[in-house]
């Protein structure tokens, strides 16, 4: 029997202004899954994924990572669950591409020579090595998004959470980011992606979560839920892009 790596139980968070938030959300994440969390603007996608990284604390319910409450050890949580933000500009803190990628491992107090080796390897893998000494502010939108992913990969996360990774990107940049995410998924990373653009990543996804007004309305396989997307205000993807894919724990 396969155990979930991440378990969300009755997660509730209501914002202080009394409006918005998420209510009574429960689901489990299994190793190697590629989950799309979708819904209209303001449906609670970002609020949900911010809880996974310990950036928001549940007011009710709990999140278990490998059967341990994620709030017990936030450093371990943030090392295990990496989060790529919607706006790469606000995520980037380094003075150069190299410094930006090294930022995470430096926070984990890893030895300098190991950091250098790791950062160079990741920059090579994502095709950013030629920009190594460039100031991140001078990169294009797609390159900045890649850099944001590189910064998270440097911390060796098991689960990577993406918040609208295709927002404000042109088509080639979207495809290039999708290639990276698909590659991460194939290499065993568990992917959770909050997006309203379901069509771009759908061929790699194994599961769909649909949110509405802060509630998790639907949870299931792509084939089962794709036709329901329209009724939740999300654009239905072209059928030609949907592939039959068994859920990892079923295969």
């Amino acid at each position, binding site marked *: 029997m396969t155990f979930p790596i991440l378990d969300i139980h009755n997660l509730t968070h209501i914002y202080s202004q009394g409006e918005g938030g998420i209510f009574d959300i429960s689901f489990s994440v299994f190793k190697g899954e590629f989950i799309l969390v979708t819904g209209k603007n303001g449906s609670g996608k970002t609020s949900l994924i*911010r809880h996974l*990284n310990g*950036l928001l604390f549940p007011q009710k319910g709990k999140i278990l990572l490998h059967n341990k409450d994620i709030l017990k050890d*936030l*450093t371990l949580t*943030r*090392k295990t669950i*990496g*989060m790529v*933000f919607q*706006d790469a500009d*606000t*995520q*980037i*803190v*380094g*003075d*150069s591409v190299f*410094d930006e990628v090294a*930022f*995470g*491992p*430096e*926070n*984990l*107090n*890893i*030895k*300098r020579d190991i*950091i250098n080796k790791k950062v160079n390897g990741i920059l090579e893998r994502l095709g950013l090595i030629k920009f190594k*000494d*460039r*100031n991140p*502010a*001078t*990169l*294009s939108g797609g390159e900045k998004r890649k850099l944001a992913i590189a*910064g*998270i990969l440097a*911390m060796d996360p098991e689960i990577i959470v993406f918040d609208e990774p295709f927002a404000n990107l042109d088509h080639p940049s979207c495809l290039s980011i999708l290639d990276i995410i698909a590659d991460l998924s194939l290499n065993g990373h568990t992917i959770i992606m909050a997006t309203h653009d379901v069509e771009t990543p759908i061929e790699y996804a194994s599961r769909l979560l649909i949110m509405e007004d802060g509630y998790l309305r639907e949870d299931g396989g792509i084939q089962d839920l794709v036709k329901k997307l329209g009724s939740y205000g999300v654009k239905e993807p072209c059928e030609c892009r949907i592939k039959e894919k068994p859920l990892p724990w079923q295969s």
Partner: protein
Amino acid sequence: MAELNPFEFRPGSTSLHYLDTRCKFFLVCIMSLSLVNAGFLSCFIALGVLLFFLKQIKFKIVETCKQLKYFILFLVFLIIVRSLTMPGDPIVSFHGMAITSQGLYQGSLVALRFFLVMVIGLLFSATTRTASIKTAVQWYLKPIPFVPEKRVAIMISLALRFLPLILKQGRETSNAIQSRCGNLQKNPIKKFIRLTLPVLKKVFLSADHLILAMEARCYCENRTDPEFKTWEKEMVFIISSLCLSLCMIFTNVYA
């Protein structure tokens, strides 16, 4: 691709980039102190040296001056105030107010000193990584008892990280106002309020996002610090700067 603001770090391979940050800190202090009482001749000597380094790091001087127009306007304001308030031989007088030659001289000198200190800061920030500045501050504060050097260094590094963010928000808001003919507003107070309030709001919001992003990657006090890279020519720079400072002091005394 965005244009860098003048105070942002520009990677490069010039002598200033290779210099140890601790040494750069020392040079900044020496040069700034020498400028406190410097006369025109000393200031022009310093300006020559600084222009050489600006050219070396490929700074576009005219473009940079355009970006720093508000600072330059402040210096002009300083000259005007000094010229009008300092007693001396009047050059021009109107409605009972006079621009004096002594005031003009003193005002220009103070403005030039301010300008040079700003150029020194600009050279320092353009050739030094934020992380190295943090480590150098930590290194200087370590021997001082009862000073939490790591905490102070982190505060400085956070402030340095926020500075480009504030400038970027200011530029973007100003563009947004201008694109909707905001420049037609003639009342300077209304103009000021229309720019500053949205900038402040956006800066706080961006700061919030930046803090979240740093927190998401476990930002803490005990992190791997960058190593100091000594270039073995630091002594040459220290001796040269001391000589330059002495030269500026003597020029001032004998001028």
